[in-house]
């Protein structure tokens, strides 16, 4: 079978009216859509960067991790590189849906006690792509050895912030839409948090496991959800917004 090479744009005549019109139409529609969503996208990107930068510098501590923990930390990268996707033939290859992977998680020390003491490691922020609904695992940490690698870990929030009792609403945005959270504060603690309004393009059922985490953790710092990172971020910011009003 003969093969033709149609990629010879340099020899083509100057684009005529219809060809130019098709390009212009695509550009016009794209630009209109871009303008409409640009501010939201920018806001989203700034927020996402902020969230991923985690807590302020003053709250960071340096901890030592052992072998197994280092391995866990690199898990997402390993998972990405070992994924086998169909090689090149889109027409014949099996179709697969790839969820958006969350960013590499942070290792969080729940109890930054003496290095020699066993402490708990919260791996809840690790992406659980195969089982997003599973509960966060808390693994005991074997004694650290000085020879091993050092990673930055994040200390827990200090004592519970002083929130005023009441019911507070807050909005969080993403490029797929907005989420309103309702947070109830009782006796200075988060008694409950729910999704009050779901105005995202996708159903909020994908992040239904997140609201209970707010009261459990007394913090807006909920899990990332593989395939729903943007909804999860929107919920996070909605809770942050609500808690701001409770201060």
């Amino acid at each position: 079978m003969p093969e033709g090479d149609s990629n010879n744009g340099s020899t083509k005549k100057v684009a005529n009216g219809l060809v130019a019109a098709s390009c212009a139409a695509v550009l016009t529609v794209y630009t209109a859509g871009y303008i409409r969503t640009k501010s939201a996208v920018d806001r989203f990107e700034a927020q996402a960067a902020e969230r991923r930068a985690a807590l302020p510098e003053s709250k960071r501590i340096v901890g030592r991790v052992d072998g197994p923990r280092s391995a866990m930390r690199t898990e997402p990268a390993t998972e990405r590189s070992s994924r086998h996707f169909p090689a090149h033939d889109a027409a014949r290859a099996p179709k697969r849906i790839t969820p958006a992977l969350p960013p590499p998680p942070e290792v969080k020390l729940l109890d930054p006690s003496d290095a020699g003491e066993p402490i708990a490691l919260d791996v809840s922020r690790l992406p659980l792509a195969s089982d997003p609904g599973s509960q966060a695992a808390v693994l005991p940490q074997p004694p650290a050895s000085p020879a091993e690698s050092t990673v930055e870990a994040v200390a827990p929030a200090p004592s519970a912030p002083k929130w005023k009792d009441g019911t507070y609403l807050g909005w969080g945005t993403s490029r797929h839409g907005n989420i309103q959270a309702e947070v109830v504060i009782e006796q200075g603690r988060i008694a409950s948090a729910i999704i009050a309004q779901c105005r995202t393009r996708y159903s909020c059922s994908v992040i239904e496991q997140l609201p209970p985490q707010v009261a459990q953790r007394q913090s807006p710092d909920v899990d990332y959800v593989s395939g729903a990172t943007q909804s999860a971020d929107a919920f996070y910011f909605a809770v942050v917004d609500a808690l701001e009003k409770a201060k």
Partner: protein
Amino acid sequence: MPVSTKTAMGTLVTIEVVGSGEGADELGAAMDCAFGWFHEIEERCTRFNPRSELMQVCSCSGVPVPVSTILYEAVRFALMLAEESGGAFDLTVGHRMEKRGFNREHRTGDIVLSPITPDDDVSFRDIALNPDRKTITLRRPLTLDLGAVAKGLAIDLAARELAPFQNFAIDAGGDLYLGGSNAHGTPWHVGIRHPRSDGQTIASLRVSNQAVCTSGDYERRSPDGQHHILDPRTGENPDDIASVTVIASGAMLADGLATAVFVLGPVHGIQLLSRLAVEGLIVTSDLRRYVTQGLQQVA
């Protein structure tokens, strides 16, 4: 290599991005946006949903209707194509398509009929646009059909979303846009389906940063066996051509031209493509091939 498939516009849409999966978050977001365009455009431009923006316009003939940028640009391009092809492509064939039995919503299977019975002689000349106010006026009652244009527009917008990733393929029911190169670092190979023999290709192309769209008489037949392309000037199925493949800078252009060329027939079809400096391959019902200058090797 990330691949994702979703249903949109009555067909399967597959997006494949060449790469190791680095920047997965950005890629995921870009893919979401790319698929988002398919849904957005389908919602506005389908004639299978009486509440779509397109059908709202169809139900308000005689008055200027302000419309979205998407619908305005799709109609504007369709009108230019109609003009350029001398009416071989005509976006007012909607009601004739309905009459031929192309009247089912692809998801529900519900029959959708527009509440209008246009005159048989309506044409694209019964549509007026106001570029300042972005309005569409239908001078007579008629049903618009943007099938050939809307899917191409969605593919082109998806390609724009994926442009930062350079090497990618978008396949919407056989209408393709191929960005950059494949996983081997060479231009994408595209096989052109043999119109009379399932599973066989009649030609093979190598394509980069271009759209490839094929209109065949083998796809989408109505209940009484007629195919989905009508000659707007006669209301009949053209019977000279089995398939038309157009390779162009964008899928909206390629898809629209494939439809127009199908109606024009091999000789006038090749003339139109040559005039526009767009490449194409025509296979007639008796399996003769007609190609444009740039595809002589394929013939």
